[in-house]
């Protein structure tokens, strides 16, 4: 439904980033995701970044309570949520204050004037009203009485004031829809199906607010221009928008189906991983059993039990949870059972920044356990890639009978992107064989991958004992023999090393050799890819390798590193991958680091790449 033909002139833009910001009670996440869905449906490529306040209920109007959602959409390919928004919708002074610094010079600023009274200004720490003191002059400011107009549009519905005011985010959404020539039909339907069944009046109020916002753009004298972002050239197929946590959860369900294994999740709620638990708990109909344990340790322990019993077992957590699970991870390693430990990283150390993103657990998952403890590590590169990274983690776990760590982060977990829906029949099966023959059975005999047999309870004649004490090679009996211990330590290490033999050649984006290699992992994928493309368009010689496998490293990595004059490693930590690369390949990597709880901006990486290219000249 197009409400009216655009009467005002329309400017064409390639890429636009919009940030919706307001109090955590203002519904900004909802507004952002509605805008995202509508924008995806209209054929743009996009990337989003939800930014949650740290506290569950910070005081209304305070800086701590500001919630934001950024959408970057384009007629060409988009890799990141956008460095600096072109448009900022600020529902109150705190939202303005917390976000203004990011807004592009000359950017559009839509402000809800009703909220700019003395009390809220003071709560946000403003000494004078920015609407009046000229401090906003570098921007195109559109002061709109969002609350007032919304209330007038729905006054005859007789809603109480508190409920009525809550519809104002739909006004803001409607206004932005108008500005960007978006069809409001998707949101109209969504309101009807979400609120309709519960409360017709509220559905009507939200709908009217949405339309009021849209019409306001058209009729008010304030806005003179609309903006058009054309469809992007996207690979054909069926798409949906997906977050990293959703994609990961779907990956586990898919891996269960591709392997034929029953899926079991043992988990303890923790930000930002809980959504995987929520998602899987909702889909018990696909056979998954989800167990919300009493603590992180019980969560992984139950998963170890399920793996022993023959399930595709996983536990989901974040850094603090990994710390608690580390002893049990080592048990899984000694038992040589397939198990996925999903670490959705957040800002650390300790409780750190639970709602913010960081990549600072790489060394934790690599080394943070007692003894020689090799565990494979797989990292997702984008929200949608989480699905495929999980499939890979499950493949390795089952094929090599080993625990595997899946790394994602708060940014990937909550951000969304358009995702081409994969066809499961195109995905390789994950073959599983349970041992059934008692003849010649020994629990720690190994196959060509050095994997031991999976002999599950209920199989006659295979009764055997496993445990955390060192095993006699083959028989699995407890052994304190010195040389046997050394042999077993080396066998476990060699098993993980052999995973590298099963990997395809490493993909290099851009120049396969030359001046600079940018090597990264996890969430920074988008920013790095976009920056490398930009710099290459300037004629520079740059390659980008994005590591999915952090342990073991691919066999060809050493050779690749040696083909460039310089290696740049951007990471949201103080140089953890650099440390591993330097140690393993004795290569002089240059670290580019940021630990601000935020993803890299494309411009930051571009600058780092250019600086480095300059330095090696």
């Amino acid at each position, binding site marked *: 439904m197009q409400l009216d033909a655009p009467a005002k002139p329309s400017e064409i833009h390639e890429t636009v980033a919009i940030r919706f910001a307001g109090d955590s009670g203002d519904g900004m996440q909802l507004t952002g995701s509605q805008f995202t869905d509508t924008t995806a*449906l209209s*054929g743009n490529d996009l990337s989003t970044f939800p930014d949650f306040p740290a506290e569950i209920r910070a005081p209304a109007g305070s800086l701590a309570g500001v919630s934001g959602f950024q959408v970057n959409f384009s007629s060409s390919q988009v890799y990141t949520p956008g460095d600096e928004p072109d448009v900022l919708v600020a529902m109150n002074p705190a939202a303005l204050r917390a976000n203004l610094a990011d807004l592009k010079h000359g950017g559009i600023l839509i402000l809800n004037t009703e909220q700019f009274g003395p009390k809220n200004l003071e709560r946000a720490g403003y000494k004078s009203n920015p609407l009046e003191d000229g401090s906003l002059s570098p921007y195109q400011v559109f002061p709109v009485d969002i609350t007032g107009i919304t209330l007038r549009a729905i006054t005859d519905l007789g809603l109480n004031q508190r409920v009525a005011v809550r519809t104002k985010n739909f006004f803001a959404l409607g206004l932005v829809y108008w500005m960007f020539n978006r069809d409001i039909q998707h949101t109209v339907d969504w309101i009807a199906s979400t609120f309709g069944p519960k409360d017709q009046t509220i559905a009507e109020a939200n709908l009217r607010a949405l339309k009021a916002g849209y019409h306001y753009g058209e009729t008010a004298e304030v806005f003179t221009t609309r903006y058009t972002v054309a469809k992007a050239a996207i*690979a*054909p197929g*069926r*798409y*949906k*928008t997906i977050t990293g946590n959703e994609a990961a959860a*779907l990956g586990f*369900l*898919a891996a*269960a*189906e591709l392997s*034929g294994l029953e899926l*079991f999740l*043992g988990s303890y709620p923790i930000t930002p991983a809980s959504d995987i638990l929520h998602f899987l708990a909702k*889909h*018990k*109909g*696909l056979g998954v*059993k989800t*167990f919300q*344990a*009493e*603590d992180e*340790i*019980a969560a992984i*322990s*139950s998963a*170890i*039990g*399920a*793996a*022993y*019993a*023959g*399930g595709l*077992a996983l536990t989901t957590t974040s850094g603090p949870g990994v710390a608690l699970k580390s*002893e*049990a991870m080592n*048990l899984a390693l000694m*038992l040589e059972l397939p198990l996925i430990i999903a670490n959705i990283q957040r800002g650390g150390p300790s409780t750190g920044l639970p709602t913010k993103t960081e990549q600072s657990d790489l060394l934790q998952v690599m080394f943070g356990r007692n003894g020689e403890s090799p565990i494979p590590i797989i990292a997702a590169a984008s929200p949608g890639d989480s699905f495929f990274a999980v499939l890979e983690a499950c493949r390795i776990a089952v094929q090599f009978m080993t625990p595997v760590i899946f790394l994602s982060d708060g940014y990937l977990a909550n951000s969304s992107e358009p995702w081409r829906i994969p*066809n*499961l029949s195109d995905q390789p099966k994950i073959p599983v064989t*349970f041992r059934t023959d008692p003849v010649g059975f020994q629990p720690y005999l190994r196959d060509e991958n050095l994997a031991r047999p999976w002999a*599950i*309870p*209920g*199989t*006659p*004649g*295979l*009764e*055997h*004992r*496993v*445990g*955390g*004490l060192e095993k006699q090679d083959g028989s699995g*009996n407890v052994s304190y023999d010195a040389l046997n211990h050394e042999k077993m330590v080396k066998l476990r290490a060699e098993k993980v090393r052999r995973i590298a033999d099963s990997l395809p050649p490493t993909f290099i984006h851009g120049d396969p050799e030359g001046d600079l290699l940018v090597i990264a992992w996890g969430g920074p994928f988008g920013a790095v890819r976009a920056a490398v493309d930009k710099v290459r368009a300037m004629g520079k010689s740059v390659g980008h390798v994005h590591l999915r496998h952090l342990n073991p490293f691919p066999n060809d990595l050493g050779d690749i590193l040696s083909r460039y004059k310089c290696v740049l490693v951007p990471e949201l930590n103080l140089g953890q991958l650099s440390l591993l690369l330097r140690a393993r390949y004795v290569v002089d990597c240059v670290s580019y680091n940021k630990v601000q709880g935020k993803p890299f901006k494309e411009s930051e990486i571009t600058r780092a790449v250019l600086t480095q290219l300059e330095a090696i000249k």
Partner: protein
Amino acid sequence: MSIYPKVTHTDASKLGRKDFQTDQDVRWCPGCGDYAILAAVHKALPELGIPRENFVFVSGIGCSSRFPYYTQTFGMHSIHGRAPAIATGIKTLRPELSVWVVTGDGDALSIGGNHLIHTLRRNVDLKILMFNNRIYGLTKGQYSPTSEQGKKTKSSPLGSVDYPFNPISLALGAEASFVARSVDVDSKHLGETLSRAAAHKGSAFVEIYQNCNIFNDGAFDYLTDRATKIDHELRLEHGKPMRFGPGGAKGIALDTRMQPMVVDVATFGEDRLLIHDETNDALSFFVSRLVHPNFPTPVGVFRAVERPSFDELMQAQVDKAKAKVKPGGVQALLDGGETWTVT
């Protein structure tokens, strides 16, 4: 088609105690109470009518936790305190298995206390055997969470200032649906108690007094010595008055302030004694508070009540959801929701 092995189960009726013994050398100290418990378990298992391959024994860390090595079933000697959580995963995934936890007072009540109480309240269908020797044996003699206050050990040379747990009260407080106590050397009673625990659907918690003759020898002598046993043991029998002592001459009754008292049955009257009732929560807890030396030590089943088990509730939920789910499996889920097509 299922990838899980299609098996023909072995004939459970042909099993004998020898079938549950392993070829491993048993490495408990000579004279340790664990031997008697091992023998009682090996005797009880073949009588349960369960194929041997369907048993799983999970233990934590401690002397008692060596148990799986000596039992010819599936078994896991896991990490300290976590056996109930591991067993929960096994039983939840595979409700058809008979899953047993073997643990000690340190393993279950110290480092693993959290897992124990949550397993009990959930009523996961596990048989939890807690060997209580009131000491840390494996680490060579430190006080445990059931050691009496004032106990002198290597880590409490001046006497422990820790107040101990009453494991039965703890299990009852944690909503366990089956709670019992037995004694290592009383093989007949222990055997009966194990059978009752095995027959119970849901978490069955059995505290077994176990003598550690190296670090806490004689802790339960008052209850095991022929001469004193009769004066100190109160056999709990459902529906029967609480009597003990030679010829059942003594009994337990309530005084006017609802406190327990030991009475002489002949003068007090049998009809005024407390009648044991395994289904009466308040009474079960009350009985658990009868503690040596002021009272005889109750032995037997404190509580046995029926409540759906966690694993069966989980299975039922999954089955119900499966019946309702749209066909097409994961692909249908991938394809569902808001989608659009780019051509």
